C-alpha cells in the first residue's frame, strides 16, 4: 500500500470533480469515494477533440562533433521555424573525419536547436525539437 498512490488518485478526483474512483491493476484494486456534496469544487473541463501536433526530439545517433552546416562556409541546414520533410539533412556529426548527415525522420517544423555548431555531442544527446505536421 503506497500513500503516494492514494494522494495521487485523490488529486485526480479533485481535478476532475469526481466523487468516486475505482482502479484495478495486476490484482490491486482501489476504490475511493467522497461525499456527494463535494463534487464539482475543482472540476476542470477535459480537452477533447482531434489528434494534436506532437513535439518530438532528435537525438544524436553517434557521438562526434556537431555542425549545423554541411560545409565550413555554408549556411545552417535548418533553423528555428524552418519546415522540414522526412529525409532532409538537419545537421552533420563528424566522427574521425567522417561527415555523417543526420536526417529528419518526420515532417515538421524546427522548434528548437539545442547544440552550438562545433560542439561535441555524446551518443543520445538532444539535437533538435520538431513539431510534427501530420499529413492529415
Amino acid at each position, binding site marked *: 500500500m503506497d500513500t503516494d498512490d492514494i494522494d495521487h488518485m485523490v488529486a485526480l478526483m479533485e481535478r476532475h470533480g469526481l466523487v468516486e474512483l475505482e482502479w484495478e491493476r495486476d490484482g490491486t484494486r482501489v476504490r475511493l469515494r467522497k461525499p456527494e456534496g463535494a463534487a464539482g469544487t475543482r472540476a476542470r473541463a477535459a480537452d477533447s477533440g482531434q489528434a494534436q501536433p506532437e513535439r518530438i526530439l532528435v537525438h544524436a545517433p*553517434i*557521438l*562526434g*562533433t556537431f555542425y549545423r552546416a554541411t560545409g565550413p562556409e555554408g549556411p545552417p541546414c535548418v533553423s528555428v521555424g524552418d519546415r522540414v520533410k522526412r529525409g532532409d539533412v538537419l545537421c552533420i556529426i563528424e*566522427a*574521425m573525419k*567522417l561527415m555523417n548527415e543526420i536526417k529528419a525522420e518526420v515532417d515538421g517544423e524546427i522548434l528548437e536547436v539545442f547544440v552550438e555548431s562545433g560542439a*561535441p555531442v*555524446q*551518443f*543520445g*544527446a538532444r539535437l533538435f525539437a520538431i513539431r510534427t505536421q501530420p499529413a492529415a
Partner: protein
Amino acid sequence: MFRKVLVAKRGELALRIVCACRELGISSAVAHSQPDAESLAVRLADEAVCIGPAASARSYLSVSAMVTAATMVGADALHPGYGFLSESVSLADACRAAGVVFIGPPPEVLRLLGDKARAREVMREAGLPVLPGTDSFDDPTEGARLARAVGVPLLVKATSGGGGRGLRVVRSMAALGHALETARGEALAAFGDPRLYLERYVDGPRHIEFQILADDTRAIHLGERECTLQRRHQKLLEESPAVGVSEALRGRLGGLVTTAALAAGYRNAGTFEFLVDQSGEPFFIEANARIQVEHPVTEMVTGVDLVKEQIRLAAGQGLSLQQADVHCQGHAIECRINAEQAHTGRPAPGMIRTFIAPGGPGVRVDSHAHAGCMAWPHYDALVAKVIAHGQDRAEAIARMRRALEMLVVEGIETTVPLHLSVLRDSDFLAGRFTTAFLERFCSV
C-alpha cells in the same frame, strides 16, 4: 605521465583502470554504452562519455566511437582493457593517427599476434616449443587438405580468435568438414575474420600462461597462472603458481618467453599461453596482447600492480623492476562469478537485488556490482572476480571457500555453487585436473 586516460572498457575492468589512474594521479574518462550510463565505473570515474547504444558493434566495438570519444574528452591515452577492441590493430592504428597513446603493444605486434598461425611460427623461431600445425587458410577445402598432415585429433582455431569462439575439436576426418564450416561462420561473426588454422590436439592437457612485462630494452616475467579449469573454453577459476609447474620448468619457460617477447618486439604487458601435456611437456599456443581477466592472481602473489605498470610503460617509463625483484609470495586463486546458472552455464542476467562483498584478510573482490544494479544481457556474464591469497594453496582454498560462502548475491543465479563444489573436490584439492575437469560438474 598522461594527463587523462580514456577507459575503453566496461564492467569490473573499467573500475580497475580507474583505480590505477587515480593512484597515478591521472584523470579518467569512461567511454560507455547507453545501458551502462548508470554503471559504477561511470559514477566513480572523473568523467564519462556515452559512445553508443547497447549493441557492442556500435559502442564498445566501434573504433570510430572510441577514438572520437578520446579526442572529445582530450584524453592523451586510451586503455582498451580486455575483450572488445583490446587487441584491435585498427584501434591501435587509429589511436596513433589521432595522437592518442594506445596502452598496449604497438600495432605491428598486435598484427603479428592477432594472426595466431603466424605468431606461432615466430615464437617457434624464437625458441618456444610449439605444437605441429598449419598456416592460416580462408578456404575450407584448403583446410581439409592441410589437415591430412596434422592428423586427428586436431583443433580448428580462428586466426583472430579468442575466448573459445571459432574453436572446434575434430576427432575423425569425417567430422572435419562440418567443423570447418561452423568454425568459419563463428570466426567471421565474432572477429570479422573468417580465417582458420589447425593445430595438433593435446588430450587431457593443463593450460598455463606466463605474465610478462616489457619496455623498449628489457622483458621480465611474473610467474605463471594455472588456467586449466575451463568450461567450453571459458576460464572459470585461475591460480598462481600453477600446481604442476616445478621451479625448474618455471625458470626455463620464463626465460624462453622473455627472450621470445623481446625477439617479437613486444612492449607493455602480455601473456604467453601454453598447453602442458600429460608427460609435463609444455607447448606454446598463443600470446595475448592485453591485460587478462585473471591478472589479479599475479598481482596478489607478486605485489606488482599490472595495470599501473601498463600505463607507466605506455607513457615511456622503463620497467620499474628487475627480474630479480619479482618474488612470488604464497598462493592466489581467482573465481569468476558469472550471472549464469551454476551447472549449465546458461546466462542468467537480471537485476542484482543484494550484493555484499566479503572482506577479511587475503580477499580481494573486483566488481562493478552493487545492490540494485543490472547484470545486462548485452554483455559478458562476469559479475565479480573474487581473489583469495594465502600463505600456501591450502590456505588460499580455505579462504576462497569462506569468501564465497560469505558473498551475498541475490536476484540472479551465479557460478558460486559450481565454484564451491570444485573447491571441495578431492581431485581439485590434490591438484589432479585437466581442461576436461569441469565437465563432471556441468550438465547441459
